[in-house]
C-alpha cells in the first residue's frame, strides 16, 4: 500500500499561513496526474481544501491522498472536520478553496450524483415511502430515465438489485417499508442503496453509530468483508477509536479540521505523530509524563519516574509517553543500583534511573478495574500525577493502596515535544530501535 507521507502536522505552528511550508510538497495541485496514489481509479486526493463555516475553520487539508482500493478510516473527536471532509468528497459541501480529485479527475465543480461516489448516512436516510427495493433501485431508475440510451436497462436494474439484496441478506425484505425494518436491516438497506450503483468510492459516515453494541461488532466484520468483495475505495468516518484501529487498511487521524497523521493503523498506533494521536487512539490512552534531563543528561526524570534511553536525550524538558499495556509490574528495585545513580531524583521515594534502558515508575494503586481479559490499574504518582497500567489476566492484581513499580522497555517509550506535543526524532519507538522487542501485532 502506498503510504501517505505528506501530513499536515506542520499546520499547527503556522496557522496564519494559508499554505504550509513548501519543502516536501508533491506536484502542484493543478497537475494531479503526477501523483500515483490519486490517479488510479477510485483514489481520492484533497489538494489545498479549505472549508469555513462563518469564521470557524472546519477543514484545512493542504494535501491528502487516499489510495485506490484502500479501506480508509478517518477518525477524530467530534467537530474535527472528518464529516465535513467526507461531505466535501461527496459533493454535498463545496470547499471554499482547493480541489477534490477522484481518480485524478478534478470533481470539485461536479454535482454529487455525477462523481461516482456513494454515501451511507449515519441515520441511513432511507426514503420512508418507498419499499426496500425502490429505495435500492431509485438511483438506477433515475439513471435509466435521464439517459435512455446508455442508462441501465430494466432487466439490468433488477439483476443488480437482486445481486445486492442477496449479498446483504435483504432478499426477503424487498417489499417492506423502512419503518418495518430493524436498525441493522435499515443499515444494510442503506449500504445496498450505496453499492448497487457500483461506485468507485464508497463513503460511510459513522454507519455503525446508530446500531447497538452487539450488532455493531457484527456489522464491522460485514463491512470489512464487503469491502474485500467489492474491491473499491471505502472511506469510513468514525469517532470510535476501536473501529478506527480494527477496520481499515489505512488510517487518517484528524483534529481541529486538520489531518494529524496518516498511515496503516498499526503504524499510527505504535508511532503516534503527536500527543493528540497518542492519547486519542488506544484505551486506556497513553500515559504522558513531563520529564527533564538530569545528571549527565542521559537520564530523564519526572515525578515518580526515571528513564534511561539509548541515544542522546534532548537537552530540554520533554513529554514521555508509554501505553498502559507496555508497562510491566516489577519488584521494587533494592536500594540504589547502577553506576549512574542520581540521588537527587529520588528525593521523595522517586525511582532512580534504572541500570538498563527503559523507564521505571512508582505509584500507588488508586482504582482497579477488571476488564475481563485483564485489569487496568490507575495509579497516583507521588505528587498527584495519574497513569494507568494494564495487567494481563492471571498476573497478580494489586489491591487499592498498594505501591506499584512499573518498568517500560526503552523501545516502548515515546518522547514528545513539551510545547507542541509533536513526536521527537528517530528515537525510541521507531522501527529498528529494538527489533527484539517487536513481538506484538495489532491490539
Amino acid at each position, binding site marked *: 500500500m502506498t503510504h501517505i507521507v505528506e501530513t499536515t502536522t506542520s499546520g499547527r505552528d503556522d496557522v496564519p499561513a494559508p499554505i504550509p511550508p513548501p519543502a516536501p510538497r508533491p506536484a502542484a495541485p493543478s497537475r494531479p496526474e503526477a501523483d500515483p496514489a490519486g490517479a488510479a481509479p477510485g483514489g481520492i486526493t484533497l489538494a489545498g481544501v479549505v472549508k469555513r463555516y462563518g469564521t470557524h475553520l472546519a477543514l484545512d487539508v493542504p494535501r491528502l491522498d487516499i489510495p485506490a482500493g484502500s479501506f480508509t478510516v478517518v477518525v477524530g473527536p467530534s467537530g474535527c472536520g472528518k464529516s465535513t471532509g467526507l461531505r466535501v468528497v*461527496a459533493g*454535498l459541501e463545496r470547499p471554499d478553496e482547493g480541489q477534490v480529485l477522484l481518480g485524478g479527475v478534478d470533481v470539485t465543480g461536479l454535482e454529487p*450524483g455525477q462523481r461516482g461516489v456513494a*454515501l451511507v*448516512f449515519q441515520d441511513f436516510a432511507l*426514503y420512508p415511502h418507498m419499499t426496500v427495493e425502490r429505495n435500492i433501485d431509485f*438511483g438506477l431508475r*433515475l439513471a435509466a430515465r*435521464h439517459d435512455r440510451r446508455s442508462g441501465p436497462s430494466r432487466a439490468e436494474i433488477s439483476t443488480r438489485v437482486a445481486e445486492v439484496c442477496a449479498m446483504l441478506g435483504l432478499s426477503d425484505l424487498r417489499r417492506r417499508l423502512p419503518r418495518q425494518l430493524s436498525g441493522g436491516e435499515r443499515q444494510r438497506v442503506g449500504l445496498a442503496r450505496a453499492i448497487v450503483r457500483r461506485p468507485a468510492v464508497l463513503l460511510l459516515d459513522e454507519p455503525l453509530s446508530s446500531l447497538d453494541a452487539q450488532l455493531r461488532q457484527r456489522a464491522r466484520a460485514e463491512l470489512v468483508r464487503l469491502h474485500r468483495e467489492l474491491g473499491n475505495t471505502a472511506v469510513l468516518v468514525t469517532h470510535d477509536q476501536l473501529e478506527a484501529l480494527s477496520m481499515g487498511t489505512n488510517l487518517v487521524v484528524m483534529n481541529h479540521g486538520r489531518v494529524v497523521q496518516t498511515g496503516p493503523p498499526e503504524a499510527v498506533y505504535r508511532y503516534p505523530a503527536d500527543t493528540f494521536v497518542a492519547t486519542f487512539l488506544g484505551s486506556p490512552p497513553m500515559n504522558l509524563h513531563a520529564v527533564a534531563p538530569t545528571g549527565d543528561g542521559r537520564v530523564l526524570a519526572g515525578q515518580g519516574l526515571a528513564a534511561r534511553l539509548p541515544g542522546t536525550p534532548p537537552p530540554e524538558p520533554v513529554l514521555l509517553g508509554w501505553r498502559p499495556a507496555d508497562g510491566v509490574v516489577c519488584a521494587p528495585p533494592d536500594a540504589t543500583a547502577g553506576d549512574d545513580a542520581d540521588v537527587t531524583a529520588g528525593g521523595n521515594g522517586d525511582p532512580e534511573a534504572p541500570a538498563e534502558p527503559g523507564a521505571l515508575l512508582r505509584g500507588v494503586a488508586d482504582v482497579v478495574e477488571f476488564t475481563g481479559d485483564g485489569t487496568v490499574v490507575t495509579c497516583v504518582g507521588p505528587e498527584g500525577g495519574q497513569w494507568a497500567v494494564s495487567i494481563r489476566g492471571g498476573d497478580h492484581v494489586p489491591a487499592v493502596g498498594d505501591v506499584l513499580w512499573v518498568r517500560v522497555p526503552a523501545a516502548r517509550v515515546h518522547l514528545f515535544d513539551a510545547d507542541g506535543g509533536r513526536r521527537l526524532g528517530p528515537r525510541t519507538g521507531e522501527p529498528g530501535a529494538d527489533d527484539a522487542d517487536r513481538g506484538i501485532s495489532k491490539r
Partner: protein
Amino acid sequence: MTQLSQVAGGRGVSHAPPSGRLRDRARPWLYLAPVIVALLVWVYGPLVFTGVLSFMDWNLTAPHPSWVGTDNYTLLTDDPRFGEAVRNTLVYAAAMLPFATLVPMALAVALWKRPGRVSNVYRTLLFLPVVLAPVATAVVWQFLLDPLSGLVNVALGWFGLDPRNWLGDPSSALYVIVLITALKVVALNTLLFGAALATLDRGLLEAAALDGATEWDITRHLVLPHLRRALVLLGLLSLVVTWPWIFSNVAVLTQGGPDGSTDNVYYRMFLYAFAFFDAGTASAAAVVITAGLAVVLGLGLLLTGRRQRVVT
C-alpha cells in the same frame, strides 16, 4: 358541587370498596362533562333543532312555529334561485380548489427549498392577509375594485387596458370573489403545507442528490409523495373552511349579485333566514348543505383511505 368535592376527597381512599367503585366509574364522565355540555348546547342541540325546524314554518317572531312537513324542501327545489345557488357553489368550490392545493403547495415547496431570511420575510408577508378582519379586507377590496376610481382599473389603465366593472359584470364577479378570497386561502395553506414539509428529513435530499436525482426528481419522488396526505386533507378542508371568507366577501361586495351570479347556498341560506325571516326554509337549506358536504367528504376520505392501504 357536593358531587365534585366528594370525588376530590375520594381520590385518596379509592380502595374503599362499595361506593368507591361507582365513584371511579363516574369520574371520567365528570371530567368530560364541561365539553359534553358545551357541545350539546352549542353544536348538537342546534343541529337537531335545525333538523326539526326544517319541517316547520316559523318567521322567527311568531310564538308558535307550525308543522308543515316537507313543504320547505319542495319550496327549495322549486326555487330557481336556490338551484342557481347550488350550481354557483360548485363553481366556487372548483375554482377555489387549485388555490387551496396546488398553488400553496408550489409556494411552500419553493419557500422550503431556499430557506433563509428572505423566505421567512416572504412567508410572513404572505400570511398577513389571514389575520386581517374579513369584512375590513372586503371593504378595502371594494375601494380597490371601484369601477371609476379604483386602483385596479387605474393600474390596468397604465397598461392600456379598458376599465371594467369587475364586480358589476355577471361574467367576472364570481371569479373576482374567488380570487380575492384565494389570497387568504393560499396564505393559510402555504403555512400548512410548510408545516407538513418541516417533517421531511432534509438528509433525504442529500441521499437523493447522491443517487443522481435532479431538482425535479427530488420534488417529484420525495417532496410530493410526502405532501400527498396534506394535499388531500387541505383539498377536502377547503370545501368546508373557505365559506366564511367567501360569505363575507359576497355579503360586503355583491350581495349575491349581479343577477345572482355570485350567489351560493350559504349566502342564500342567510337570505332565507335574515332577509325573508323564513327560518324553516333556511333550516332546510342548512340540512341540504350539511348532507351534501357529508357525502363529498365521506367519499373523499373513503377514496384516499383506500389508496393509502394499497400502497402499504
